[in-house]
Structures are given as structure tokens and as C-alpha cells.
């Protein structure tokens, strides 16, 4: 996931980060908890298709295909397997298919948001939404730090393999300790250095921060937002009408 965060972008992104965030929230609330019947039967499939279309626009073919495949599998499982199974097996099928068909779209949208937004775009979006520095700084540090923690994690994994420390060989408690202790220590050290470097370049100055990253709404943003608003209207309408 973080591998994709590392891109820098020429020109503007397809969707504004704020639009993407709105999409995540819309999809998670409507597809997971939206109820059935009426207009829901139209808006739900539309929202479910959105992550797929976005992956296609970004030319992430593999992700798009995986998404479709898993969704179809879960959906047809719910349709065909649930009626013909019984007992514990039935429970598993219901749980698996129900979970996947409901949670997949939201998670796919979330991963789209994370993988197609650069850190500065995030910062810019958060700042324009009026979030205080107390939230934007931790958020940007976190995104900056994901790849670092990932790198450290895999380097420690290498070191463990080389020293012949495997799962199954020892106690799980020891495994956890060998994994976590070097990870924590390296991350804290790198974090300290990162802080020092950022502070000597004025991070946290008591002035309003500029952001030269250009974000803004385009035609597609408006279109997507309309769909989201429509979705929420139907959701509220349904709730009110019972």
C-alpha cells in the first residue's frame, strides 16, 4: 500500500482529495448500512461500481479486476450458496459473503484514497477543511512514516530469517518480542531525527501554513458529489419513511 504513496504527481489528480474522502464515507455508510428497497436498489450498485471505475481511470487494472472478482464471488455466494447450506457451514458462508459484499466497496475506496493521494495533497485538503495543525501534523507525519515502518519491518524480518528465528520454532511470545523490540527502537530513533529535521525547518510555526499543492474541484468532483448527496438523501428518506 505505502509503495503507492511514494509517487509524486505532475499536474492535478483526477479527483480532489476531499471528494475522495466524501466518497469513502458515503460508500461505507450506504453500502454497509443502507437498507433495501426502492431507490436503494439503484444507488447501492452505483456506489459499489465507483471504486472499480476509479481503479480503471487510474489504470490499476489488476486491482480493478481483483475487486470485481471478489465482489462477484461474494455476491453469487450469497445468492446461491446460502440457500443450499445448513448449520455451521451456512454460518461461515453467510458471514464470509455478507462481510465481503458489504465491506469490500468501502475498503476498496479507502485504499484508492490512500494510494492515489500524495502527502501534500492530504495536508492541503485537511487544511482547507479547516482542521487545526494539531491534527494535520500528526496525520502527515503518519503518512510520511508508513513507508519507513514498512522498511524497518521487512529489514527486521530479513535479520530474523538469517538468524534462524522462525515461527513455530520458539514461543510466540518470544517471536513478538524479537519483532517488536527492534522495530520500536528503530522507529523511535528515526522519529526523533525526523522531528529535529522538521523543527529546524520551521514546522509548527505559529503562522498559517501555506501549501503550494494545487487541489480543487473539477467536473468529475461535482458529478461524484451529486451522487453522494443523492445517496444520503435516499438514505435519510428511507429512514424517515420507515
Amino acid at each position, binding site marked *: 500500500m505505502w509503495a503507492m504513496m511514494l509517487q509524486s504527481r505532475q499536474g492535478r489528480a483526477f479527483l480532489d482529495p476531499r471528494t475522495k474522502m466524501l466518497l469513502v464515507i458515503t460508500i461505507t455508510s450506504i453500502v454497509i448500512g443502507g437498507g433495501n428497497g426502492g431507490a436503494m436498489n439503484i444507488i447501492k450498485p452505483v456506489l459499489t461500481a465507483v471504486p472499480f471505475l476509479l481503479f480503471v481511470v487510474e489504470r490499476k487494472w489488476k486491482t480493478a479486476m481483483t475487486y470485481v472478482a471478489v465482489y462477484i464471488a461474494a455476491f453469487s455466494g450469497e445468492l446461491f450458496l446460502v440457500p443450499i447450506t445448513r448449520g455451521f457451514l451456512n454460518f461461515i458462508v453467510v458471514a464470509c459473503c455478507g462481510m465481503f459484499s458489504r465491506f469490500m466497496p468501502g475498503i476498496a475506496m479507502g485504499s484508492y484514497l490512500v494510494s492515489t493521494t500524495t502527502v501534500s495533497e492530504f495536508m492541503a485538503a485537511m487544511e482547507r477543511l479547516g482542521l487545526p495543525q494539531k491534527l494535520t501534523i500528526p496525520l502527515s507525519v503518519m503518512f510520511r512514516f508508513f513507508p519507513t515502518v514498512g522498511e524497518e519491518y521487512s529489514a527486521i524480518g530479513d535479520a530474523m530469517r538469517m538468524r534462524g528465528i522462525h515461527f513455530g520454532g520458539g514461543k510466540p511470545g518470544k517471536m513478538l518480542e524479537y519483532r517488536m523490540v527492534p522495530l520500536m527502537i528503530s522507529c523511535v530513533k528515526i522519529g526523533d531525527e525526523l522531528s529535529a529535521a522538521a523543527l529546524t525547518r520551521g514546522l*509548527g510555526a505559529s503562522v498559517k501554513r*501555506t501549501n503550494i499543492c494545487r487541489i480543487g474541484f473539477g467536473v468529475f468532483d461535482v458529478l461524484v458529489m451529486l451522487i453522494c448527496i443523492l445517496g444520503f438523501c435516499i438514505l435519510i428518506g428511507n429512514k424517515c419513511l420507515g
Partner: protein
Amino acid sequence: MIELKNVSFFYTGEQADAGVKDISLVFEEGKVVLLCGKSGCGKTTLTRLINGLIPHYYEGTLTGNVVVNGYLVADTALYKMAGIVGSVFQNPRSQFFNVDTDSELAFACENMGMPEEEVRRRMEYAVEELELGSLLGRSIFELSGGEKQKIACGSVSTLEPEVFVLDEPTSNLDMEGIALLKKVVAYWKANGKTVIIAEHRLNFLADLADRVIYLEDGKIAGDYDGVTFFGQQVSFYRDRGLRSPYLKDIWRQERYMPHLKDFCSLQGFYYSYGKPGSVLDIPKAEIPLGHVVAVVGKNGAGKTTLIRSICGLLKHDKGILGIRRKKLKARERLSICYMVMQDVNHQLFTESVLDEVLLSMGQKDQATAEWILDSLDLLEFKDMHPMSLSGGQKQRVAIASALTSDREIIVLDEPTSGLDFLHMQQVAEGIRTLQDKNRTIFIVTHDPEFIAACCTDILLMERGKLREQYPLDSEGMGKLKIFYGI
């Protein structure tokens, strides 16, 4: 002008010796000043006193005054100091706040809340002045060490400070990277900036430093003008525990080269990271067993990929390593090779130095473990937490566990980056101990002084290929010097 008056500082919590005691100094404008001395001598502390990280970031007891361009550092908020003193640090990996170069260049100005046009103007200016054009729009993860340090310099120079402070900026750089950094420092000097550099590697500053301050135990133990300092005999630097500024003076430690008939062979070492073009392409090579092989080459020549492949750490690796009539595939190599990583923090797992060594033993045998620690001069630390040791000591703990592991092939990745002369010597001593125990050793390094101290063979790599292989005899030493351009 920078003025330190009777300044003392002690860190809270950390070792008492890392601070500085009663320092009084005046730095004139437009000069390049080198701060040198052994690890823990206080040179880094001095840089922090100037850029304001002390007392605003690192906690401790500070007495005396530090005044930079009329600002009393203790009373000036860090973000205000940012415009007065620009800071570049040792580790390029941890000093970047953004993951792309453009945002990184804009970062400092954005923090200051400058208008967007102003930010862009200053970025353009820095790009032009420091020749950063080719680095724009790149992910920082694809830059070489030298390029990262250049961006780091660019990113602080956008605020146009009068003073620059660099804390061991070349620790992770190869010769090419150092040359890039040197140009930047020369440019600043030509533009009348004050540049203060704390460094172990003195070589690149020989014709730049106007003044050299030698520190010992947190005190000033020598204050020279550049010409005097760099005009001394080798013994002058050795006595002070400093790296030699004149690499051409380095001499080769006569090493025992066992003339064994046995070789370990590399066969079909090809590798590419999914992208077109291979990063490693060695059809066949033979390395004499029991030798210490320095793997040298420019950044991106495939050195690290080669040693990772030797250790069996790469996925889908088809290379075969032959040793004593055995043909080993990648997975099988994991159990005969041991890698001491560049960042040893990754491979220290236990709560004491002794446990660390015992961990790699099949049969736990405390007496042998202690004997090995003793041979590496580590016995007195056996009950300490490995992570609380200094960089050189940690390297040696990793070497000690490599020794106890009974692996035949030991691989080290840049073991001396950021080490002072003494610690470098200690690591070299550790390597010699390994060789005495008949291990075959591969070392990726950029450090000619270290190669001369303990290696027996050179493998020169270029664009993934094995360019040259020769023994490090007096003729080989000549070749090596030509490679390093010294």
C-alpha cells in the same frame, strides 16, 4: 556572527560525557568551520547549540549564552531560528518530511506561511543555484544518498539563512555523493555564508575549511586555521583519533592471504526488481575461501543486491552458490551465511550483549560466548542492552554474533558509515578476528581507509556486472587508489 560564551550543556538521561563544557567561541561571517573529534566529543552538541535544537528540542541543563546574528538562541523559538540557521543532518532517510522532492523543497517556506508565489520563486532560485533541476518531481526513495543530501541542502537554503550547520553530512555517501555536497558547500562559501560542519571524514574539506576546531571530551582541545590543520603529518591525525584527510597516505595493512585451493563459486547471479534491465548480472565468479573481499563500486552498481543474493534474502533468486562441492540455492544459503546489516539496529534482538551472542549459538555455551566477546573487546558490556551502545560497539556485537553463528560466509553492508577512526579500527580488528577463524567475508564499503585496514581482495562492480576482481597486494592497492581517484 555567532558567539558562544562559557557554554556548558549536559543531556538529561543520556550518558554524561556527550555534552559540552565551558565552550567560548566566536565564528566570523563567511567562513567554513570544521568541527572534528572522536565520537561523543561534543561536536554534534555544538551544532545543536547553534541551530537551537538545544535547548528547544533536546532536554538538559544549559548554562552560558549562544548568540547567532544578534539572536539569543535560548530565547528564540525554533521556527524563528529556521530562517537564521539552516541545518542538514547525517541520515538522509530521516530528515525528509515529504516523500517527493518538490514538496520537500517547498516545505520550509510553507511552514513560514509565505505566499505561494514567493515559495515558488524561492524554490526556483534554489534549484538554479544548487543545480537541482534534474532532481525535481522525483520520489525521494529513488534518489542516491548524494542526491538526497543535495535536496536537503536545497530545502534549507530556500529560507536564505546566513548560517548553515551540517552534522556529519557525508556519513552515508560514496565518493560521488561527497563531491556533490562539496560543490554545495563551496557555493555557499563563495556567497559569503557561514558554514559549520561537524565531520569524521575530513578529506573533502581540505581545500574548503578556513578554520578547524578539535574537540575532546566536550572541550576545545585545538583551534587551527585550515592551512595549518591540513598541513600536518599523518601521525598528527592518528594521535587525535581522526580519519586521515589525505587518502593517498593510507597504507595497506599486510594481511595473511591463505593460499587455499578452495573457492566458493557464484553461478548465474542474475536479478532484476521487476523492471526491465537487470541490477545484477554475474554469470560466473570464484572467490577464494578464507579471504576478505571488499565489494566496491558506485551507488546503484548492484553491490547490495549481490550480497543480499549471496545471503539468500532475495525472492525468486535463481543463483547457485557452490562451496565445498555443495550447490546451494537461495533458501539453503540462509543457513550458511550471516549478514551484518548497515543498520545494525535491525538485528539486535535481546536484552543484553551476552544474550545476543548466545542467541546465535546452537549449543548455548556461556564460556565460549564470553571468550568471543573478550576477543572483540566487548566483555565489559556483556550485561548492557545492545541498543544502548555506540555505533561502533553495536557493529562489533553483530560481528560477535556472526562469529558464534558458525556460518561460513559472513557479509557486511557498509560497516563503517559514520564511524570515527577508533571505531573503524575496532571494526577492522573484528573482521581480522573473523578471518582468523577461517570465515569468508564479503564487505560492501565506500571506505578506502577501512579496505586498506582489513581486506584482501577487491570485487569492483559496475552496472550490475563484475567489472574487475583482484587481490589487494601492493599492485592492487594502486588500482584501488585509481578507482577512488586518490
